[in-house]
């Protein structure tokens, strides 16, 4: 296997927050010891509930946060010590797209002004050639004809168009990977499908990789090569078939929590009340998922499970009982992945 583009080793990020009373403070371990490799050209999804540390992980990958502990590497070089050309290369190769496109575009700049800025900063094109280049960039993200969008301000665009501009901006300098933090969650379903299609097209035509942070497992299933599931600051499962063959009880819980557009199933009507979720600051001894786990045994109370490979496939799981649970969790008729071509999505 080729060397990873980005890798994290034992990375930790803690935030402290003053208590409501004003006395003392609480430390939250947002990311609590994560090892992760991101390879060129792959689409890696990171899923989990809010508070699982997935956005913090994105910030660490982008070097917008410096980790409390652990190391992050870009092409084998440690991120914190990057200087000079390699640092510029990092900033060029790793680009970001955020959740709310409106707030990541300057409201006082037209699309053209905002994008010109980057052309100039990275000396991508000569001044005379810039407008043509910008038109190309917008066409590539499906904003056609580009002249219609260049002179507009962000507020004159719809949410989907804004997100396309944000993606165009990230794509301009031909990055190796785009870290996208919840790029879909502020968009309507039909627009979500279009943005997913756009991401697939860009991968095919430019071989750009994506790290997509999302809470939407359905959408991630349709575009990801690999998926990492985070729970309370740790990766509890990572692999290429977590949707069809979940191995961690938390992955299973997330998959089961998806609402199906199928009224004949009516799960809410028949479901037993779900257990409540323990507060963030308390991390129990042993397995951190234990308080919400239906399958916990004595071992789970004492030993904190680490991420380990399963005997088959490339999946890694942090659960003592992964082998036992594997058969239990198998989704009937599963194992097939949804077609990744997105046929019919933009009908």
């Amino acid at each position, binding site marked *: 296997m080729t060397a990873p583009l980005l890798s994290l080793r034992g990375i930790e990020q803690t935030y402290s927050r003053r208590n409501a009373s004003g006395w003392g403070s609480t430390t939250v371990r947002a990311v609590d010891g994560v090892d992760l490799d991101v390879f060129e050209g792959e689409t890696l999804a990171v899923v989990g509930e809010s508070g699982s540390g997935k956005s913090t992980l994105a910030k660490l990958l982008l070097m917008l946060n410096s980790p409390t502990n652990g190391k992050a590497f870009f092409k084998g070089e440690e991120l914190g010590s990057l200087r000079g050309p390699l640092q510029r290369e990092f900033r060029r190769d790793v680009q970001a797209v955020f959740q709310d496109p409106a707030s990541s575009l300057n409201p006082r700049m037209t699309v053209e002004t905002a994008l010109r800025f980057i052309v100039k900063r990275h000396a991508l094109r000569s001044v005379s050639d810039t407008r043509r280049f910008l038109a190309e960039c917008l066409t590539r993200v499906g904003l056609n004809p580009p002249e219609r969008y260049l002179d507009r301000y962000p507020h004159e665009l719809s949410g989907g168009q804004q997100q396309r501009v944000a993606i165009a901006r990230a794509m301009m300098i031909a990055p190796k990977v785009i870290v996208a933090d919840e790029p879909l969650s502020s968009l309507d379903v039909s627009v979500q499908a279009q943005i997913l299609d756009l991401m697939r097209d860009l991968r095919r035509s430019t071989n750009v990789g994506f790290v997509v942070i999302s809470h939407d497992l359905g959408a991630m299933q349709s575009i990801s090569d690999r998926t990492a599931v985070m729970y309370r600051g740790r990766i509890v499962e990572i692999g290429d078939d977590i949707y*069809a063959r979940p191995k961690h009880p938390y992955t299973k819980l997330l998959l089961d929590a998806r609402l199906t557009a199928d009224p004949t199933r009516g799960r809410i009507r028949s479901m037993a009340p779900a257990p409540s979720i323990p507060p963030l600051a308390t991390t129990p001894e042993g397995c951190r998922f234990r308080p919400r786990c239906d399958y916990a045994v004595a071992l789970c109370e004492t030993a904190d499970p680490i991420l380990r490979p399963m005997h088959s496939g490339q999946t890694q799981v942090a659960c003592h009982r992964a082998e036992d649970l594997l058969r239990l969790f198998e989704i009937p008729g599963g194992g097939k992945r949804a077609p990744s071509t997105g046929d019919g999505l933009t009908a």
Partner: protein
Amino acid sequence: MNTSQDSDIPASSSQPLLLDVKDLHVHLRIGNQIVRAVDGISLEVRHGECVGIVGESGSGKSTTARAITKLMPNVSLARFSGDLRFDGLDLLAMADRDLRRLRKDSGFSMIFQDPLGYLNPTQRIGKQIGEAVSRDGGLSREQSVWSLLDEVGLPDARNLVRRYPHELSGGMRQRVMIAIALASRPKLLFADEPTTALDATVQLQVLQTLYRVQRERNMAVVIITHDLGVVAELCDRVYVMHSGKVIETAATQDLFARPRHAYSARLIDLSTHLNPTERYA
């Protein structure tokens, strides 16, 4: 689901409607343009029924709910017409004072997507729920608050009433909103994207609570959502909205089995595409 439909539909034809909206137009003046946010829709809600209004952003679904509850501050109306009847009362002709009484006691309530925007950050939860309680003889205000918190699935009420909104999680805040909404013993609850901001696992719990409360109180609920999953789980009937108009209305199972309008079919298609495994499960 089957049982509720079997028993509801024959009875309902003779039963008077709880909410009867006919030909509602809400046109907003924005700058020098007129936006036809709601453009001639009609809808009916019966006692104890759960009705969904689905559509994408800009379809007018939230404006519809705000128009019916007459919660439309700071908008310039170019046109607001139609026939709005709630429990036999004409809402359009009603004086503001009577409308307030209707919101306060046994009328309608509303919950929204972001509870933090509607809870007072400087007041304890208990006080905010207590303010909304309509007195009913039997229980003291304090006891009413406790029983409401218990009803929406928040145990340990004695501790919780002393908390401020920022100390609660998103799911707990939405439950507090539901408790406040229930405090006036409404006949109809409007829920505008009640679980959109929540995690999937929490969404499931809140929807579960909403469903249980609706059944136990025999209260009518109108859920406004863009998520057909929510509709499929909870609603007896659905209105599909697109650019200010209702383009299709049907019993939930019929809509999913045989959508008549191409737009509804596309919405259903998209939500199954975005949840691919479900086709195999």
